[in-house]
């Protein structure tokens, strides 16, 4: 029964996104054309990947606010490596980005696991530290497109079957995440410890360790996105992806991921990301200043949280009623 409601919620969200696209295309017909749609998808790929990773963290009743800073730091590191030694193949840089991101995520997870510090405090702290390190590393300077190698910039733009590599990558990661969430023990453990940590202990699951893994995953994906971000926008500086962590949380919450843990799925997170992506891409099309973006995501988070709370509350009440009629 609930499954169908959750599914319905995703249908509802999909319907809203479609309606939005159609409404916008009335104003500006070019919006609906395939190249533009693909561009929107391409623009949203990074958010989609990160939203999925953030979802795992939120499922375990944690939150990762350091993803934006993680992107900036890994992005800066790979950009500097590239400008210093352009002959280094891109694949190596991608691996470095993944590894560095993993380490940064592991630091968050370590504090949450070993010292049981509230994740919000840890990631608020590391958010500042990581971003500060970007400044220290580059001494406050920018790395611009002309300092980056051809292949570094070209990699995400490589065209495969008419679709950019970044999009393919995003889809691949999302597919991997789906498999993880659905078909791996670790994925199910994310749900289990968020649902009932006490019961999880009975099943022999170490709650702290699973949280640690969620942070590692989130960090790793953020690292990957760090490379994509820098090469796609062809610039690396201190403030890139500032506030992006909020977008990832927003995407999750819009997609029905419960901030109290255990509820949510990849489909929802992706639709949440697409929702924000379409809004962001549509704003210039319908002549609204991009400065609206921030408050729109804020408002949408609040609406989504209220909506989630409402639907969660309802299920609570019906259980009570059932209990009563039996007794």
């Amino acid at each position, binding site marked *: 029964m609930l499954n169908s409601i959750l599914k319905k919620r995703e249908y509802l969200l999909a319907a809203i996104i479609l309606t939005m696209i159609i409404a916008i295309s009335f104003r500006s017909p070019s919006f609906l054309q395939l190249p533009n749609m693909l561009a929107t998808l391409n623009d949203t790929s990074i958010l989609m990947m990160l939203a999925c990773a953030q979802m795992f963290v939120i499922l375990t009743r944690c*939150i990762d606010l350091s993803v934006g800073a993680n992107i900036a730091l890994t992005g800066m590191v790979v950009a500097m490596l590239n400008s210093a030694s352009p002959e280094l193949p891109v694949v190596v840089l991608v691996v470095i980005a993944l590894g560095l991101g993993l380490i940064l995520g592991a630091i968050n997870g370590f504090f949450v696991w070993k010292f049981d510090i509230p994740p919000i405090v840890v990631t608020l702290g590391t958010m500042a530290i990581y971003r*500060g390190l970007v*400044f220290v590393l580059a001494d406050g300077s920018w790395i611009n497109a002309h300092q980056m190698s051809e292949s570094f910039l070209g990699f995400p733009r490589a065209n495969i079957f008419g679709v950019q590599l970044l999009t393919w990558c995003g889809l691949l990661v999302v597919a991997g995440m789906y498999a993880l969430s659905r078909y791996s023990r670790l994925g199910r453990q994310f749900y289990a410890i968020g649902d009932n940590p006490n019961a999880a202990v009975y099943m022999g699951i170490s709650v702290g360790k699973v949280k640690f893994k969620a942070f590692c995953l989130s960090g790793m994906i953020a690292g990957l996105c760090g490379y994509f971000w820098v090469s796609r926008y062809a610039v690396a500086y201190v403030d890139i992806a500032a506030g992006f962590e909020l977008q990832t949380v927003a995407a999750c919450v819009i997609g029905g991921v419960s901030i109290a843990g255990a509820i949510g799925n990849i489909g929802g997170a992706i639709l949440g990301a697409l929702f924000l992506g379409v809004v962001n891409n549509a704003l210039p099309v319908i002549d609204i200043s991009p400065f609206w973006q921030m408050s729109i995501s804020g408002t949408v988070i609040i609406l989504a949280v209220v909506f989630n709370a409402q639907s969660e509350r309802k299920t609570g009440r019906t259980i009570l009623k059932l209990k009563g009629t039996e007794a």
Partner: protein
Amino acid sequence: MSIAFSNVRRRGAEIPNKLEMTMMGRLARWETLLVCVVALVFFLNTIASPYFLDVWNLSDATYNFIEKAIIAFAVALVIISGEIDLSVAANIALSSTIMGAVATAGYDTPIIVGAGLLTSLACGAFNGFLVAKVGLHSIIVTIATMSLFRGISYIILGDTVYKNYPDSFAWFGQGYLFDAFTVEMAFFIVIAVFFWMLLHKTVFGRQVYVIGNNKTCAAFSGIKVQRVKFSLFLLSGLASGVAAVLLTSRLGSTRPSIALGWELEVVTMVVLGGVSILGGSGTILGVILASVLMGLVTFGLGLLNVPGIVMTIFTGCLLIAVIVLPRITKLIMSHSKKTK
């Protein structure tokens, strides 16, 4: 509370009010530790920079922490009650923007200040409504409103600036009282005393502690938990408003990026001041000391030409360290006890 209670159990009326506290017990207080660290940092600063002890410099140093400390007091109360408010910096941005708009429309200082304070109160009330009445998590609510409030500021200002503040408005952030100390300093002292009284001397303060320690028990004891929480968010909104007035007046201009990232420093101050992030304990004195400490450190680093963004590394490390260190010492203590 790590103080060991004596095994002397007395009966009924013979029970004394307070336990004799040992000298060690007094010294082991977090506040004592903070005083020592403040003295140490002060000393190091005088060595590191010859300009530090200059009276004007010291007076300048106060700007570094006063505005943040004012918010930190209110946020301390929110955190003691078991919630959190991350939207304070965004609240400053929005209040400052509204003040800028009112000033640009040609109104005079009282109206500007009134508009700023009203805006901040409205923001606080919005948070309070969502947390206390609707019953949402304060973390996610204030993350959202953090984006919403600053977002509105961006909508209004975009990449422009408000700077048509009347001259009289500068008094708050740049004025002096009796030629001796700054208006900001006066605000700081008055507000610190206010919050000290509120938390430690009033029924309201007691209720905040009870709620932070045990919400259910508070409710069963007839404390109106929702109302107290709502008031706390109002209060932290208002404190942001006061900070917005001081900051805007000091800078003389408003950009939407004003006070960016302050929520981190404010939370760090509160936690450094000995307030438990899980709620239930902490003192205003601790927050005052922590704010002075952070002010001195940032000012000292500033004199040494360390850029602001690097200081945030320091802040971030400090935030994590103050929470981790007590836990490590506890672990070591319990370990050594076991081996004994």
